[in-house]
């Protein structure tokens, strides 16, 4: 293609401030997208540990058919906060806030996001919201699950109102991040980087950002209404006052179905970066992968009522929601086949990142297939509210999103820290995690088919054997995650120096030092093509000084 716009001086790309020197400005209230990304990462991992401990409380309770580890009410609190925390404090912030912030501007050839200050404000809402959510245990945590359906959520203790406020706050953070990323991707690409030359991770963020922006705002409305009803008695959902509990389900799922794509699309992007790098082959079907992300994002707004087939939805409403949900399997299938074709005939390097990426493809496909079971009305009538549903969404959220986060972390850790992760520990982490994961969630499929209900603290003794298998396997999974954190701490101190490009990857972030300088690039590069053609020279110009000692030239307008 013809050379696109070349760099013209005097614009934002030449507008640089000196790097702040104090600890507070540099690492606490930083406006540098890379530091903010790492802040999100650390905070998200802390919440992963807390919510993971809650998961172990659940599994320990379920060791015995008659429970006994915690009280039944505490059990309800624990699974409600576990789900809420994993969705809003772990997966969404890690996918967008952490990896989106750190990687996306680098891949765009930008010096930062469009609104660095807004980015800092978004981040700081997130730990505050997390503390609010966990503080709800002190005042009677929510007990109606992460979905908080009325009328039960109207009867919950004060902690349910705190839950509303916490999720509202983390939602604002996510909305602002979405806006920031939209403007960044649409307006701040390096010269020559047309939309169809963007790395696929950026495409995934571009498909995710409007979901964060639109769906999360709709959720804010639902949360505000629930809060008003609980605190001031304003009737929206209470049927005795003319309200409708179904209204909450509509408002909640209008957000929460797109939210599952917020949680998975960035992982699709990560996988699309990792597979070609370690198969040493161009990604198969670049445009199809990019556009299928956008299709999934759009179609995701039209399927929310498939969560409500047993809620009394009219049959003529059920059919279109069922069919539209089936339709989403098509672009998802396009991605799976593109990834398999990328691996086909490749020279595959089984690094830890690659193992997690391949594990992602397999486990996510399994979770996607059970999603089709649940989207079909007749099967859903049988399976709704059973452990089959729990199995389904843990396959997509743990086998999918969390595996994606691990894959992305192993892949970008050298860029973030300048050091390599320990591969032996990484492989132990992978195999133990996959074994523990399948041991925990695979039996839930048949337990659900046999009718074991979710969200109940005690269960029929006939299910006890498989529940014990699940609980023991979940400890293996937790141990694997412990190995992961040990690996991080060890590698930060003793890891081998990574150098700028340990994976010989071709996107822009790997062409600059690890960790990158304050303003990322000495000169803003010009882009001439896609980053995935492994046999060709790199499609960038203007990067010659990046790995030398040449000082960054002071642009005309710098101060």
């Amino acid at each position, binding site marked *: 293609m013809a050379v696109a716009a070349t760099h013209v001086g005097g614009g934002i790309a030449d507008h640089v401030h000196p790097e702040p020197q104090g600890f507070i400005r540099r690492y606490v209230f930083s406006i540098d997208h890379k530091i903010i990304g790492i802040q999100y990462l650390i905070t998200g991992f802390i919440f992963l540990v807390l919510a993971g401990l809650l998961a172990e409380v659940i599994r320990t309770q379920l060791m015995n058919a008659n429970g006994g580890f915690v009280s039944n009410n505490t059990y309800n609190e624990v699974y409600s906060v576990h789900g809420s925390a994993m969705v809003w404090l772990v997966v969404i912030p890690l996918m967008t806030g952490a990896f989106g912030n750190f990687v996306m501007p680098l891949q765009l050839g930008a010096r930062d996001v469009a609104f660095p200050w807004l980015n800092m404000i978004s981040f700081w809402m997130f730990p505050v919201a997390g503390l609010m959510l966990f503080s709800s245990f002190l005042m009677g945590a929510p007990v109606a699950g992460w979905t908080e359906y009325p009328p039960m959520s109207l009867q919950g203790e004060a902690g349910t109102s705190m839950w509303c406020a916490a999720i509202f706050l983390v939602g604002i953070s996510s909305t602002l991040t979405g806006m920031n990323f939209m*403007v960044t991707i649409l307006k701040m690409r390096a010269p020559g980087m047309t939309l169809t030359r963007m790395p696929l991770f950026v495409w995934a963020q571009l498909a995710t950002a409007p979901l964060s922006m639109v769906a999360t*705002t709709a959720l804010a409305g*639902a949360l505000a209404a629930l809060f008003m009803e609980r605190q001031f008695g304003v009737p929206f959902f209470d049927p005795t006052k003319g309200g409708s509990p179904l209204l909450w389900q509509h408002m909640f799922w209008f957000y929460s179905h797109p939210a599952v794509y917020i949680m998975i699309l960035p992982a699709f992007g990560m996988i699309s970066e990792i597979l070609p790098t370690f198969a040493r082959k161009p990604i198969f079907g670049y445009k199809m992968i990019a556009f299928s992300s956008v299709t999934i994002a759009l179609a995701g707004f039209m399927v929310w009522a498939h969560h409500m087939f047993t809620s009394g939805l009219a049959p003529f409403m059920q059919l279109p929601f069922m069919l539209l949900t089936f339709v989403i399997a098509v672009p998802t299938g396009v991605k799976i086949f593109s990834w398999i074709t990328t691996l086909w005939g490749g020279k595959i390097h089984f690094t830890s990142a690659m193992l997690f990426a391949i594990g992602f493809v397999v486990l996510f496909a399994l979770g996607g297939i059970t999603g089709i079971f649940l989207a079909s009305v007749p099967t859903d009538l049988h399976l709704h509210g059973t452990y089959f549903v729990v199995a389904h969404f843990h396959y997509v959220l743990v086998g999918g999103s969390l595996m994606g986060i691990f894959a992305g972390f192993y892949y970008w850790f050298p860029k973030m820290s300048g050091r390599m992760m320990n591969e032996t520990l990484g492989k132990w982490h992978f195999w133990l995690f996959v074994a523990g994961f399948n041991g925990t969630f695979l039996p839930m499929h048949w337990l659900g088919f046999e009718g074991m209900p979710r969200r109940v603290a005690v269960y029929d003794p006939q299910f006890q054997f498989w529940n014990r298998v699940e609980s023991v396997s979940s400890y293996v999974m937790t141990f694997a995650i412990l190995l992961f954190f040990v690996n991080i701490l060890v590698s930060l101190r003793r890891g081998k120096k990574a150098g700028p490009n340990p994976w010989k990857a071709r996107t822009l972030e790997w062409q600059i030092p690890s960790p990158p300088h304050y303003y990322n690039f000495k000169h803003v590069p010009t882009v001439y093509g896609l980053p995935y053609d492994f046999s060709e020279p790199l499609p960038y110009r203007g990067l010659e000084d990046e790995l030398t000692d040449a000082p960054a030239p002071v642009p*005309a307008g710098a101060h």
Partner: protein
Amino acid sequence: MAVASLPHQHAEHAEGGVDRFYEETRDLRLTGFLFFLFSDVVLFSAFIFAYLYLRNSGQSWPPPGIARLDVAFAAWNSVVLFGSGATMHYALENWKHGNFNKYAGLLIATIVLGIAFLGGQAYEYTHLYFVDKISWAGSGIFGASFFTLTGMHGFHVAVGVVYLTVLLLQSIHGVYTKDKYFGLTAGTLYWHFVDIIWVVLFSIFYLI
């Protein structure tokens, strides 16, 4: 942060009379501001959906025992708000043409009309509360949806009045120039947005 408060000399960037830094940041801010307004539209839409859903789940509207709204009064109040949209539009046009006095007069007129609209809404609320005995929490889904939505809108108008007052003071103090006036553009967009939301709310509460 201290770094960001260093004196900015954007004129240094000027090449051939065009300040590219200003042009590019204005582009970013405009896009970001439009996205902000769009997500605000979604927030209103969530409650509008809730209102229409609840309204259609009952047999009659207004629900039994609830007096009808005073359409004529609300219509006059709407004229006040739409009039302020017109004055805001011409205020910005006059700024672009350098007529500072006309601009200031029209902006003050906008602010006054905005306050008048809020006064009308306050009158309507007190009338509903004391005469028709309709309240936010005590009148079922009618009170919940009507006061929540019009209250949200009123809050946006109140924020707008403060916003426009700040813009007026800023322009008196020379923050904006004939070529660089993004703040005024954003204020105008916000004010038109508040107008458009009111068109929808007026239609769904008073007309249907």
